[in-house]
Structures are given as structure tokens and as C-alpha cells.
């Protein structure tokens, strides 16, 4: 127990003192997570809406594909991105391997199926009369989608939270394509793994607490926004 208690004390001290390394890791993690979530949701939400509302040949297969991608191991995603971005890969010319952009690409691929599958489920849960009503009042496809999205705002908010939660807690892909380089590609999760291995339990615990607090903050902010939207 002393071991844990000591770790916790060290963690609190690091957080309160605003340790430069911890701050750097946190900021990088937030940059990667926010960028990846924004891109994944920008692509995934319309994709989910499309899957949920438009009948097309192969729709069922598309659903199966997206749902299967939900369970795709993140290390395999990391391997794929590594292959794409490595010097001999098709996107090697970008020079992104072992940069935060590479981690963001991996995270986008991880969060995209989450955004698409969960937003499709959210849209399917909206009363179909909303869409028909908007259409019969002469709304364009975008305005109709907006009317439906407003009805599903709580569920869509949860989709964004879930995508962010997955991305910020992801380690497999970040480790492979980021390389866990100090000051450059070290995120909260890769740092926790490293410091634990090095016996720096207090530091790892401090980062773990920050990770939890970040996840909590995102949920609280979302709930506050939803509360305002409901009022």
C-alpha cells in the first residue's frame, strides 16, 4: 500500500508543480486527440447519416464492414499506418512517420468507424417523421440532415465523446507509428507504458490521473452543453 500511496503523492506533486515534461505530454496528447476526433467526426458523422438514411445496393455489407472495423485491433491499425507512412510506403514522401501527424492518422482510422457506426445508430433512433416532415416542407438534403441531427443531438454528442475517449486512451497505434519519442511523439498512454516499465510509478500514475481527469472533463463539458441545449 505504501508503494501506491507514495506513487499517488508523487503524482499530485507533479501535477500541482506543473512539471514541464508532464505538461508537454498532456498538450501533445490533447492536440493529437482533438485533431483526430475532429477529422474522424467530420467524416464519420455524415457517413453514419448516409448509412442510416439512404437505401443503396450493398448497404448491409457496408454496415457489417463499419461494425467490424469497430473491433479492429489498434496495433493492426498502427501496422497499416506504419506501412503507409514508412519510407517505402505509398505515403512515405510525407515524412510523417514518428511524428504527431502519424499518431493522428492512426487515431482517425480508429475513431472513424466509431463515429460512423454510432452516429448511424443515433440517426436510426430518430423518429422517421422528422425526416419526412423536413422533406415535405421543401428542405434540402443538408437542411433535412440538420433537422434530424438536432433531434439526435444527445446521441451524437455521445458519439463525439466516445470517439475522443477511444483516441485519447489508445496506445497500440501511437506506440508503433509515433515511436514514443520524448518531447515529440510521447503521449499520455505511451508515456505511462514507458514510465511503468522504467519503475517511475509515481510519474506513470500522475499521467494516469490526468488521463482520467481529461476524460471526465470532456464528459462534463458535453453534459453541460447538452443541458443548455435542452433548456
Amino acid at each position, binding site marked *: 500500500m505504501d508503494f501506491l500511496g507514495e506513487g499517488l503523492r508523487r503524482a499530485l506533486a507533479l501535477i500541482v508543480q506543473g512539471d514541464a515534461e508532464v505538461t508537454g505530454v498532456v498538450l501533445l496528447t490533447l492536440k493529437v486527440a482533438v485533431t483526430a476526433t475532429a477529422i474522424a467526426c467530420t467524416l464519420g458523422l455524415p457517413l453514419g447519416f448516409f448509412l442510416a438514411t439512404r437505401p443503396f445496393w450493398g448497404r448491409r455489407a457496408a454496415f457489417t464492414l463499419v461494425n467490424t472495423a469497430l473491433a479492429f485491433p489498434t496495433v493492426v491499425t498502427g501496422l497499416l499506418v506504419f506501412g503507409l507512412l514508412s519510407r517505402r510506403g505509398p505515403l512515405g514522401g510525407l515524412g510523417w512517420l514518428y511524428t504527431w501527424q502519424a499518431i493522428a492518422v492512426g487515431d482517425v482510422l480508429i475513431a472513424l468507424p466509431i463515429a460512423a457506426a454510432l452516429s448511424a445508430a443515433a440517426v436510426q433512433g430518430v*423518429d422517421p417523421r422528422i425526416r*419526412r416532415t*423536413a422533406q*415535405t*416542407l*421543401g*428542405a*434540402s438534403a443538408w*437542411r433535412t440532415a440538420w433537422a434530424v441531427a*438536432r433531434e439526435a443531438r444527445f446521441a451524437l454528442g455521445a458519439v463525439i465523446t466516445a470517439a475522443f475517449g477511444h483516441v485519447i486512451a489508445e496506445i497500440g497505434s501511437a506506440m508503433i507509428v509515433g515511436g514514443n519519442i520524448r518531447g515529440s511523439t510521447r503521449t499520455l498512454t505511451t508515456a505511462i507504458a514507458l514510465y511503468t516499465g522504467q519503475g517511475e510509478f509515481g510519474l506513470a500514475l500522475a499521467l494516469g490521473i490526468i488521463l482520467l481527469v481529461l476524460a471526465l472533463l470532456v464528459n462534463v463539458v458535453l453534459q453541460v452543453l447538452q443541458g443548455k441545449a435542452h433548456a
Partner: protein
Amino acid sequence: MLELVGVRHRYDGRVVLDLARFEVPPGALIAMVGPNGSGKSTLLRLLALLEPPTEGEVRLDGRPVSGGPARARPDAALRRRVTLVEQRPILLRGTVRDNLGFGLRARGMRRADVNRVTEAVAARFGVTPLLERHRHELSEGEVQRVAVARALALEPEVLLLDEPVSSADRAAAQTLYGALAEERRRRPLAICLASHQLEDAYRWADDVRALADGKLSPVTPENLFRVELPAWVPGSGDLRHVRVGTVEIAVMTDKAGPAILAVPPTDIFVSREPLPSSARNVFAGRVTRLSRQRPGAVHVTADVGVELVAMVTEEAARDLQLAPGGPVVFAFKASAVRVF
């Protein structure tokens, strides 16, 4: 003119609507009547351009706008010309004011104009006091009224109404129909409404059409019964007896299986006592309702083991001293029963 041409619409392979032609002429008020599941709502959804017919096409002013060989797809501008108010309408998120202005904003109208039109239509439909309310603060009847006002704010050429008074009380129904009549006096507007209420259909519509099992009934909309005709028995001729409610109706037909029976109200002889005649169908019962829907004509509704409607002249109704609760006998020939 809005029309369906050669439409056979299917759900899961089953034909739910089969209409060679269905027209909604400019300025007409058409009432569609028929039992639940007869295809009224499907018909309105096709006319509203919300789904294309599986076969056939929807035309607006002679131009295919939905379905057909070219698989025409309506755009938002076309949909604004034909607006549907569903049986259980739903208000979009926001206030009643937001809802009334939704279609206008979709059309790109300026905010000041949206407000002006919104307030004018709210006044016409008596929903001004509700303008700042949200959907959860409204009764079903109020939602229905707001939904009709929201549709008419767009000034469509055709308004489609699915059971517009199903959730409203009688007084609210009169208000709604009155407001629609006023709207039609104000500008050219065709209305096609689906209703269970024959009385309302006759009172307000210029043209009453009956739908049964997705087909237009060749006769008037009263006395339509969905039945299962027994198989033909050798030696029985074409005379069959079919159970409807608690009575057996004699019909002349060579058909078997699922069918619709229609007894035209004008083919029913009305008396106070059974009279000797060639009619194979003679049913005694009690008058449940008398309604004068056309000058000189009275609809006599009676429970004779099944609810039937007969039409008599006002003079005949007076001579027979017909009154709700009073005895009555309905008689009609087996050959008067239409089978389709």
C-alpha cells in the same frame, strides 16, 4: 395537376397500391376514404414525392417528377409545391414560430419576411398564442393545427392531409375545415385528404373517392367490406353467402378468395317492416344516425348486424318517420352487391 399514372407500389413484394390513374386537379378538394390498411397513407406519401412508386410515375403538370422509366427524383423546390401533413404530425425542435418558419427559411426567405408570413398564417389558424411554445407544451389537437399551418405557410399548390382530424375533437375539426375553406377562398389550393369520417368527407370535399386494398372502389365509399369469398361449389350457381359482421350477405359472383364487397347506398330499399320482394338480403335493425349531406338526400346509418348506410330522399325519410333508435329494415338484391 398532380397525378399518379400506372402506379403499382409494393412493400416487401406485396402490392399495396394499384392505381391506373389518380388525379388531383388544381383547386379540387378530394377526400379519400377507406378502412385502415387500404393504402390511403401510402397514396399520400407517393403524391407527396416522399417515395417513388415501385412501378409507374408521379406527374406534376404533366411532367414526371417521381419514379417512371427515368426514375425521376424530386428536388426540394418541387416538394415545396406539394406538402403533406401526416396522420400524427410531429413538430421539429424549437418553438411553434420556428416550425412555421422552417419551410420558409429552407426556401431562403429573409428573416423579416419569414416573421411576417409566420404571424399571418398563425393568425389564420388561430395558433398565435402558441407561437413561443415548444412541442411538449402542446396538445395533440394543437400540434395538428400547427402542422397544417406550417404546411400552408409555404403556400403549396397541393396540400395532402392524412386523417387531419383524427386526434382533434369535433369543434376543433370544424375550426380546421373552416380555416382550410377560408384558405381555398384566399388562393388556388388543391387539397387531398384521407379520412375515416365519411360525414366530414361529404360535407367538405367536392369529390369523395374510396380506396380498398390499394384499389379505387368503383362505387361510393360507404358499405365496403373486406371478405374472404368461399370457393365455388358445383351446382350452386354464382350466388354465394358471405359472412359480414353477424349477418350473411348474398352476392352474385364467380370470384373466390380475398375480395371487397361494396353495397351502394342508393341500391338499398329502406322500410320500417320487411316487405315481400326479390331482394335476397333483408336485414332488420335500428337507425343509429341520420345525416343530411346533400340537399334533399338523407344518409340513413343503421345497425342491422353490421353497420350499413342507405340513401333516401328527405321526403321518404319523413314518410317512414325514421329517427335514431327507431326500427328499420334494409333490403337489397344479391346482384346489387359489387365485388372487386
